[in-house]
């Protein structure tokens, strides 16, 4: 919600770009995370880090924009904003005041598959934050005026994040065309027309249905132990009555008939063309889990930094592009996505650029990747795993997002071993399937008058 800048509604888009990095950090024995369950079905995770007496207190709800009903696009994110309005115990303005006067920094963000709220704060203030967050899980109050004013705020947020940025509009159109009826084709922040129609009842319906112990995960990272946290959690979150109506997230895994999906957008504001492609790919929940590890390796080889295949071919050797990267988003309740993003060099036409990209993909399909490339990518993916423990705030973020989309702590722990086990055959098979048969869409953004 509330963020002025980085974190928020369209976090999924940024998250996608950082997916490989997050995966690198996902090793439970490196995080040293511990977990336990409360009687009402809520999971609690502790990631100790005692360097500085602060904690990152995060509550993750296993619900996001992809759980919305058709016609109600944006309600998950709108509710996230409204969650700061108050409860009988913490009425208007008090949530902001309480956290600030305790020296805390707070915010929240919404993605396709999760919604999270957090406070980074001195560890001796943790109990108060837990009381607050447990209270607003079930006791939100909203006036019609709150809803009306906040809807205007969300519309301004949309104007800032999407309408002011031609590249964001293009991505939104590409997703809509590619995913068709899958809810990943609907932007997290929602369509303007549907946001305008969202009301107080919509917000409460969504809130009552999803904000409950069983669909929540508490993640606390920092200067605290599981032994200290358990009684605090039992005295706050543990007092909330279980809500049985929340069970599981039934998601469509329907894929549209493959078609040549292409979105070409010209905009007078554009000075620099962009080219991007999104493939619908296996995720940790759909398709073979093994394939997700192979695709992480593929993403590293193709687009992981300046020594990658695409960068070396397009940016260095041919000088046809100014940048070239790949990402793989395996964290999803439904399908994942594999993306390529390339910026042409000044004066280079997008047709020539796309031909050069296709030629590189053809080399992968026909010649495959070498065993050396695969081994090196595996080494690189694992090399930075120690950094995962450095910052409690980023550790809480990484572990929370993985758990919220359905991974277990054990699976997170297995990550280095699973990557180490990936073979060149698996990477080549995954690459072949992706580039020859996965549904995909290409987006091109051009200045007016360009071709």
């Amino acid at each position, binding site marked *: 919600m509330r963020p002025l800048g980085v974190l928020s509604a369209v976090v999924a888009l940024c998250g996608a770009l950082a997916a490989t990095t997050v995966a690198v950090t996902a090793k439970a024995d490196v995080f040293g995370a511990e977990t336990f369950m409360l009687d009402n079905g809520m999971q609690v995770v502790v990631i100790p880090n005692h360097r500085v007496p*602060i904690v990152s207190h995060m509550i993750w709800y296993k619900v996001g924009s992809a759980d919305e009903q058709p016609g109600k696009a944006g309600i998950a994110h709108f509710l996230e904003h409204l969650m700061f309005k108050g409860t009988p115990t913490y009425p208007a303005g008090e949530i*902001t005041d309480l956290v600030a006067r305790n020296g805390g920094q707070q915010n929240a963000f919404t993605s396709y598959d999760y919604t999270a709220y957090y406070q980074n704060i001195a560890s001796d203030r943790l109990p108060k934050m837990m009381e607050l967050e447990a209270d607003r899980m079930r006791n939100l109050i909203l006036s019609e005026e709150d809803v009306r004013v906040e809807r205007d705020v969300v519309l301004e947020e949309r104007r800032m994040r999407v309408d*002011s940025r031609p590249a964001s509009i293009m991505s939104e159109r590409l997703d809509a065309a590619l995913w068709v009826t899958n809810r990943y084709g609907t932007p997290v922040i929602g369509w303007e027309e549907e946001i305008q129609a969202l009301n107080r009842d919509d917000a409460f319906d969504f809130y009552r249905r999803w904000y409950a112990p069983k669909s929540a995960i508490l993640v606390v990272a920092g200067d605290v132990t599981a032994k200290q946290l358990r009684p605090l959690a039992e005295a706050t979150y543990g007092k909330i009555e279980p809500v049985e109506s929340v069970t599981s997230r039934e998601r469509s895994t329907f894929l549209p008939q493959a078609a040549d999906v292409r979105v070409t957008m010209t905009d007078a504001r554009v000075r620099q063309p962009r080219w991007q492609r999104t493939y619908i790919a296996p995720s940790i929940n759909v398709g073979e889990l093994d394939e997700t590890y192979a695709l992480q390796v593929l993403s590293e080889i193709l687009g992981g*930094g300046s*020594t990658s295949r695409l960068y070396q071919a397009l940016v*260095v050797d041919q*000088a046809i592009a100014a*940048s070239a990267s790949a990402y793989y988003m395996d964290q999803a309740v439904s399908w994942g996505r594999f993306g390529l993003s390339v910026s042409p060099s000044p004066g280079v036409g997008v047709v020539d650029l796309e031909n050069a990209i296709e030629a590189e993909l053809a080399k992968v399909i026909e010649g495959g990747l070498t065993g050396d490339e695969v081994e090196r990518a595996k080494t690189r993916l694992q090399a930075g795993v*120690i950094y995962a423990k450095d910052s409690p705030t980023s550790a809480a973020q990484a572990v929370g997002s993985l758990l919220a989309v359905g991974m277990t702590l054990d699976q997170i722990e297995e990550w280095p071993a699973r990557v180490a086990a990936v073979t060149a055959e698996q990477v080549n098979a995954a690459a072949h399937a992706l580039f020859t048969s996965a549904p995909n869409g290409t987006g091109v953004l051009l200045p007016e008058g360009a071709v």
Partner: protein
Amino acid sequence: MMNHGLIRACVFASVFVLAGNAAAIDVEEVKTRNGITAYLAQDDSNPIIAFSFEFLGGSSLDPDDKLGLSTMAAGLLDEGSGDLDSFAFQSKLQDLAIKLSFNANTDSFSGSLTTIKANVDEAFSLMAQALSAPRFDEEPVERIRRQILVSLARGAENPSRIARDTLFEKIFPDHPYGRPSSGTPETIQAITQADLASYASERFAKDRLFVGVAGDISPRQLRKRLNEVFGHLPDAIATEWRVADTAVTYVGTVVVDKAVPQSTVYMAQPGLSRDDPDWYTALVADYILGGGSFASRLMDEVREKRGLAYGVSTSLVPYESAPFMLASVGTRNESVAESIAVIRDEWRKFQSAGPTADELEGAKMYITGSWPLRFTSSGSIASTLVAIQRSDLGLDYLDRRNDYINSITLKDVRRVTASLYKPDELSVIVVGQPVGVESTVRAGDPGVDSSGG
């Protein structure tokens, strides 16, 4: 290898105890015999080392016809050095998970290195080589040039970037701060390999260097590394790192016409410098008015009460030669006039009455209570240690900082708000198609045409 002229004793040390908890950050000063100083927060809880440095003098020193030279140099130092070409250099960084970056700022040039302990030799060797023997081969030079040109083109699409560039151009006419710091297509094209090759010798010296280090490294090891990385530098150079002092020019209202549904608004007036005795008081005042995120007056008036914007904020910007205060808001074209009026009105109320006692109390509680959040990663600890030295705050600053904040009285802050806040001296830059807001400067002036800045 470099000589290891080491000094043994660490004379100064300070233990910063956070919030009465057992956890603490110990900071000590580490000096080499040949005059390099670093602040070190040694911590062996995780085998990671973060190293930050800064040379005074940044993009404001770039020649007019080579604007963007600092940006381009920063982009090229990690693109090959010594016997390693770009590919070999970058491969080593990636294989060993070493994070190395350089950055050109307005008044400084900074760098950072993060490595796991097992690769510490290679990491420091690569950074030392990047600073002392960069190659500037033709391929990476032309590649980084293309990337800067593309980034300039993207900036020309971005309303915030246009607003910022226009603001600087207007409030700092005829001064280096008024120029686009990353250059223009023409100046980027004009930069030669020779310009880049002489960059280090013209800008880098020990007399303008600050170093901050956090993590698993001993003072003795750090002295060796400091010599390895910076030992080749001259003690001093002739280049004056400061640009001439200037004042913020009042320019009224400037509208840059862009066909966008939401206008981006920047407002600015003169501020105060980091070493001003009233700095902390102004910091507290700024928090209350607009720096305090959701807790600020402007956020309450503009967003919470009226729904005019997603974000509104203010900040103190302590540029060395012309400090200023900045406010920004993004709002639909129909609401620009109202948003500016609300901000100016709050500015005026602040000038005439200052904050309330309760607001002051709340600000102190946040600013002091959130101080430990500055130290949540090795990198942020290292860069904070650099900032402390650059502003000459002393080794015990981590301990004393909250005392400065707590000692501020309501009388202090009202004295400062009365003299500092000048609602009628707020220059306003609007990028968009605001309804009912007109430029007060002549059409045809730079920044008023439709191509933006």
